[in-house]
């Protein structure tokens, strides 16, 4: 009898545990989506013999190498705080790595020999940023770097002696140079100057000469040099949309400034990337992006070579992450809309493919949702593209929707795995991303159409999109929320204040609440771009009324529905005091505001714990407002 009783008790207990609240079936834990990568930034040494990567240990990334032939793993950095943020190979044995730093402070740089270990500090100026321009060593000890050591607003070019860490000026920036480009031999021959509105491409034949302006273009145009074409030292591959609406791949004569050849152009396809082979000094293929990225091979050899990869890794996107100098050993990354993908090692001589690591092993493709391209016509007749991700299973109409406007200015949503989108879709919401006007990748006209339209036509595009979704019967008009980060947060707040009938709730993550402050927050070393931002966002001297009328901080009285506002109080990109004042005013007006103060990071937290905290709060907020 007693045994029976105990058995019964056991049974009841097991039932209790089985029904423990928490993760429902089909609902994937928040953390699984936003896991930090165990192993990231796979690279390969210039001689193609060693693999390198950053491995997560106690929430810190440390640098490791692995001998490809023997598989021997060596740990090179042993950091206990502020891990490795970024690294690169500078010779077949030596690597340079940067440590994590608070935003907008200088760089802390180390060099380490993979055979010797014991990293050496190269630079730790708290004010100066250092950017490596060319990863090839000159005279086996000098590295070309750009730094704002002399003046925080401009980057000069220095020769960094990696043996003793000393810096010597290589080229002084007259103040307007925004970027420097080297040729195949590591000689500084190209520079991009900017006066804020116009960009000038400068060229010199050899390093003893002075730079000479070659082509001048407005920032509304794209002109991105990719690398030198051939060995003549004066022809450059560039992605350009000068005199075109979409980007093309062209050859540019840097002496005459003339466009010599158009290698790829299409009225409907926008070139976003050129795969440049340094060894062959040629572009092998271009990546064009419509609703998804696609390769267009420029020669038969490339087609055969990369076509092989497509055969080995079917039904997935492939991106070349790193390669050795002889272009024999490659690190590849795959991904789809439902799979964050994996790293692979590919040795072309042996046609051997080896899986290195998954980006996020907790994500199973079958549980993720399909991301479909959609498009609609705005009220003024513009075709606006976007993506719609519907939750798995169940009905496909009258769904609760989270509208997800992307950050900006000048960026876009692309097709691929997006943890945030998948997380929201997994929670049962249809996720609607909109590449509103001003977004990149849809041609010059489409982008410039968004200039100074924040809160106006850009907002109208989002509203038109939502109305289209309602007409399609996909959205339940009573359960639509809007959530965005940065400028996406700005759009979310704007939509909420101007169209309160359409949305039940709005969430903003490190959102821009005031365009004036946004312009103020542009760091001094971007001073050259300030005029450009004035054109895109608004000129605080002449467009005061416009900027005031669309900045949410001035209009706390227009909000009526629940809001979720998150920010890091130390975020230098926004003025946190303003957001707090804004939240206070909303609370005084009895608007339900959930205010979350993030303890680190800006847009997305670096630490897994902080990310989890943010997304759990967001989930609760959306659930409360959308699942009534």
């Amino acid at each position, binding site marked *: 009898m007693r045994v029976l009783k105990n058995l019964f008790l056991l049974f009841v207990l097991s039932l209790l545990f089985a029904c423990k609240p928490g993760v429902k079936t089909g609902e994937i834990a928040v953390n699984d989506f936003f896991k930090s990568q165990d192993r990231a930034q796979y690279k390969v040494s210039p001689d193609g013999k060693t693999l390198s990567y950053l491995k997560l240990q106690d929430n810190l990334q440390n640098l490791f190498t692995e001998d490809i032939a023997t598989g021997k793993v060596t740990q090179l950095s042993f950091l206990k705080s502020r891990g490795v943020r970024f690294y690169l190979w500078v010779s077949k044995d030596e690597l340079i790595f940067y440590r994590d730093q608070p935003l907008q402070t200088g760089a802390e740089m180390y060099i380490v020999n993979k055979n010797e270990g014991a990293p050496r500090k190269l630079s730790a100026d708290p004010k100066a940023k250092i950017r490596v321009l060319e990863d090839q060593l000159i005279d086996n000890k000098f590295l070309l770097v750009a730094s704002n050591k002399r003046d925080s607003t401009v980057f000069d070019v220095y020769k960094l002696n990696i043996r003793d860490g000393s810096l010597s000026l290589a080229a002084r920036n007259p103040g307007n140079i925004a970027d420097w480009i080297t040729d195949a031999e590591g000689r500084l021959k190209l520079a991009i100057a900017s006066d804020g509105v116009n960009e000038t491409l400068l060229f010199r034949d050899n390093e003893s000469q002075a730079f000479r302006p070659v082509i001048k273009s407005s920032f509304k145009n794209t002109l991105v040099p990719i690398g030198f074409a051939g060995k003549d030292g004066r022809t450059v591959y560039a992605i350009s949309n000068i005199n075109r609406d979409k980007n093309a791949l062209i050859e540019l004569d840097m002496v005459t400034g003339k466009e010599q050849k158009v290698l790829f152009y299409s009225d409907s396809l926008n070139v976003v990337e050129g795969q440049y082979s340094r060894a062959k000094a040629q572009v092998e293929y271009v990546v064009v992006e419509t609703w998804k990225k696609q390769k267009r091979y420029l020669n038969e050899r490339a087609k055969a070579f990369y076509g092989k990869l497509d055969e080995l890794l079917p039904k997935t996107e492939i991106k070349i992450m790193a390669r050795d100098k002889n272009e024999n050993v490659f690190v590849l990354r795959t991904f789809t809309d439902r799979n964050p993908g994996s790293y692979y090692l590919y040795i072309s001589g042996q046609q051997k493919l080896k899986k290195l690591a998954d980006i996020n092993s907790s994500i199973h493709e079958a549980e993720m949702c399909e991301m479909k391209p959609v498009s609609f016509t705005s009220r003024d007749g513009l075709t606006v593209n976007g993506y719609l991700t519907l939750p798995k299973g169940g009905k496909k109409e009258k769904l609760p929707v989270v509208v997800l406007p992307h950050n900006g200015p000048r960026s876009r949503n692309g097709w691929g795995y997006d943890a945030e989108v998948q997380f929201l879709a997994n929670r049962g919401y249809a996720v609607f991303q909109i590449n509103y006007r001003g977004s990149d990748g849809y041609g010059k006209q489409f982008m410039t159409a968004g200039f100074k339209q924040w809160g106006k036509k850009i907002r109208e595009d989002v509203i038109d999109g939502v109305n289209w979704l309602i007409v399609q019967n996909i959205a339940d008009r009573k359960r639509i929320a809007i959530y965005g980060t940065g400028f996406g947060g700005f759009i979310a707040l704007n939509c909420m204040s101007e169209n309160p009938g359409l949305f039940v709730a709005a969430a903003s993550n490190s959102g821009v609440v005031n365009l004036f402050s946004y312009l103020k*927050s542009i760091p001094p070393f971007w001073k050259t771009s300030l005029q450009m931002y004035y054109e895109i966002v608004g000129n605080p001297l002449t467009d005061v009324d416009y900027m005031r009328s669309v900045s949410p901080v001035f209009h706390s009285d227009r909000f009526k529905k629940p809001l979720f506002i998150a920010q890091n109080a130390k975020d230098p990109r926004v003025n946190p005091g303003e957001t707090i004042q804004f939240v206070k005013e909303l609370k005084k007006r009895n608007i339900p505001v959930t205010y979350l103060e993030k303890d680190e990071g800006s847009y997305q937290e670096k630490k897994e714990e902080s990310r989890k905290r943010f997304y759990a709060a967001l989930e609760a907020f959306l659930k409360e407002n959308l699942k009534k």
Partner: protein
Amino acid sequence: MIADKTSGYRKNFLLIITFIVLISVLFILSLFLAFNFSNKYIENEFSSAKVDVLEKTIGPYNDFFQNKIPEVSYYNGFLDSATAAKFTDTVLLKYPFVSKVIFYDSEVKNEPVRDGINASHFSFGPKAIYQFGSLVPLDSVKLFSYDNTRSFSVGDDFNAIGFKLVSFVESLDTAKAPSQDELFSNFSAIRSNRITYLNIPRREDLKVYKEMMRRKLASSPVYQQDLLTFQLDPYKIRIVNSRPLLYQRIRIEPLTYDPIDASDLYMATEITLPGPFSDYKLYFQSSRSFIKKEVFSYFLPIALILLLVYAVLMLVAMLIYRNLNINSKMFKLQYDFITNFSHEFKTPVSVIKIAGNNIRSASSLSEREQKHYGKILDEEADKLNGLMNKLLAFTQIENKSISLNQEEVSMRDFIESTIESHTLKYSDFEMTYEVSGFDKFITDPVLLGSLFDNLAENAYKYSNPGNKKLHISARLIRGRIVLRFTDKGIGIAAQDLEHIFKKFFRIQNQYNQQGSVGLGLAFCKELVNFMGGEIRVKSKINRGTEFIIVLPYINT
């Protein structure tokens, strides 16, 4: 027994009187207390509700101070004369107590300034000064510029906040973020009738300011700062009298205002205004008679509630008294009944006893005597039996514990047999009858018999000898049987007519000295009701009485 009864009831009555007196005293006392309380309460209210008035009055100022002024910071130093004019227009329009706004379009730089503040390499000075206000003439909007420095004087609001800025930047700990409150207090100055506010720079800018104080920066940066001075007029504050019944007059007066003619006719109180208005106070005044009105308006509902409670208590007392009264009457009636009834029983019982005694004491009984006593015993036993039956039947009918028998009866035969039995009993009883419109109908013959017997009995009893006549008529009128019993008897007085159907009611006269318990007519009424009919009576003193019985006509 009678004494007990009466004294018992008198005691209860006394209790009720005591009760009424007590609650009346309580009522008056509570009225008095309530009035005193109202008086005290209103006096307290007079001195405490001013906080409420102050809060409501100062509301727009708080909104201005907490929400509108920080808006200057939102412009991040980008204000110029045109945009500042727009901003101040909204301020002037929305907040009437702001009389003038002075806008200092200022700069923070590394180069020393001629007008402004220089602290080592840190300089803070105005580029231009503008004033805005409804009374400012258009040609004097611009007060100061680099080329025209006439209206800039040291000791100005500008310098006050300038010193604050310098000392704040000097002691700034760049490692930690200053709190919102710290920033606000360091970038604003509140003085009598004016608020000066400097837009709060971003934390990054403050770090540069600190650097600028230490050394000359290579890029010689220039930062824009907007300084606004709001001149306030306390007399333009719109007073919100949230208690118009309490405060007759509310004014804004200087802090020193203290009228000497404050007589006993007036009550007054005051409260100091906050922040830049601290040299002024709200002065509240009401006349005594005005306050009295408010006291009454507060007291009246309390008094009404008290009155209601008092009324309910009185009603309860009255109802208790009434019930007691009825009970006492019932008690008396039942007592009468018992007396009557015992008397009623006594006669036959004593006759039986005498007869019994006679039979026992007689040595021998003649046949005549034997028959005589036999007859007496038989008759008296019948009488007792009749009494018992009557009582039983009555209680049964009253409790509805018997059921109706349904039998077909011929009216004519029924009346004839009644007449026969009564004339047999009373040879001087003259009875006549008539039946028209029907003959046979369905009823309970026993109950109907009792009814006829009772009414015939009464007619005989209450008629003078020689005039003992009864006419019974039975008619079918509009589907109902109407029976009339008309006698030529003594009649019933009008005041008694409504009581004759009550239990134990007897009209006191020589005709019913014995053999009556006052149940007969009450019994008849119960019977008729039981049979689904009704009974009425018409009577005239010394002329006769007519009982009218209406019964439902049920035919086969």
